């Protein structure tokens, strides 16, 4: 099982032009802990929406790679979006699910994945081009390479420890997060 902070940090090493959409809660803190970046569109709400924000962005910018990094709770709430993404087949979209099988923000209650509900199988059934589970830190480099060079749609389910990590709180003003992201995207 993975240390979530170390795993996300390794995914985002030398991230270059990668566009990152972190889902609400711990995923946003993990991405912030890896280093604040204007091309992070931090979510503090909109639960269930991270993957679809990634799709809209991937369709709008086919020249750029988009990585959604979110939790199992967010992905399960928006699980229908796997079908929506599968229909559109964006080759520049990857989703990394940080799966601790828990709702970490609310007291570590078990999620559906704790009972073996399989997001990788769901993604494959939704015609994702590539979907796999990872649980060892030595797989992080492969996942990082997928985010930059893989042909999507891709889903990686990363089994992480159910630990309570310190919160690293990035920008919270939605207008500021949006404007900073757009300015940085247009500057490159």
């Amino acid at each position, binding site marked *: 099982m993975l240390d979530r902070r170390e795993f996300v940090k390794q995914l985002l090493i030398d991230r270059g032009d990668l566009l990152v959409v972190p889902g609400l809660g711990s995923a946003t803190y993990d991405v912030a802990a890896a280093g604040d970046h204007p091309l992070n569109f931090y979510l503090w709400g*909109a*639960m269930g929406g991270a993957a679809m924000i990634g*799709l*809209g962005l991937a*369709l709008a910018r086919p020249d750029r790679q988009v990585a959604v990094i979110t939790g199992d709770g967010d992905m399960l709430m928006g699980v*229908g979006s796997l079908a*929506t993404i599968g229909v559109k087949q964006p080759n520049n979209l990857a989703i990394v699910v940080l799966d601790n099988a828990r709702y970490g923000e609310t007291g570590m209650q078990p999620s559906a994945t704790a009972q073996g509900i399989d997001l990788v199988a769901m993604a494959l059934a939704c015609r994702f081009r590539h979907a796999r589970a990872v649980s060892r830190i030595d797989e992080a480099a492969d996942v990082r390479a997928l985010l930059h060079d893989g042909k999507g749609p891709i889903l990686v389910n990363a089994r992480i420890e159910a630990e309570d990590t310190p919160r690293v709180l990035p920008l919270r003003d939605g*207008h500021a997060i949006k404007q900073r992201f757009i300015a940085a995207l247009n500057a490159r």
Partner: protein
Amino acid sequence: MHTPLNIETSWPDAIYAHFRRLGVRQVGYVPDAGHSRLIALCRDDPDIADVVLTTEEEGIGLVAGAALGGQRAALLMQSSGVGNCVNMFSLLRNCGFACVVVVTMRGEFGEFNPWQVPMGAITEDVLRLSGFLTYRVDNADDVDPIVGAGCDMAFSGNLQVAILLSQRLIGPKQWTR
């Protein structure tokens, strides 16, 4: 086929013309019979990515992502779908994303199915409480100017605008079998 009475009229073409004029590049929808012609026009347009959603709230994320990437998007749904979106609407308000939602109304004029009535009766109020400007269209001749004005306001001011196409305009759903 459930084909609305007035679907041969030109108002869907007027909405599509505004999408073209304003450079809308993504259109998300959960189908409704009243939107069938507009959906077909968008699907046939190589400049528009048509995205069939499993639930309408997905469309709010789509609009936000499109805007981050510099594209304009619009959503088509029926009134029941507005209820599916409520929490996700906060993404639009928190970040100031322009959003155009074209809503075909059910549960009002001549509605056959009482199960459509509770949501249809509160659709406009729900949109207003969620921060949308709402414009209701009852006559075919008003579709063009109202949709045009609504889209202009949304995209020029990063506002959330809903156009409600009344059931009287669309025609009650026809049950042909």
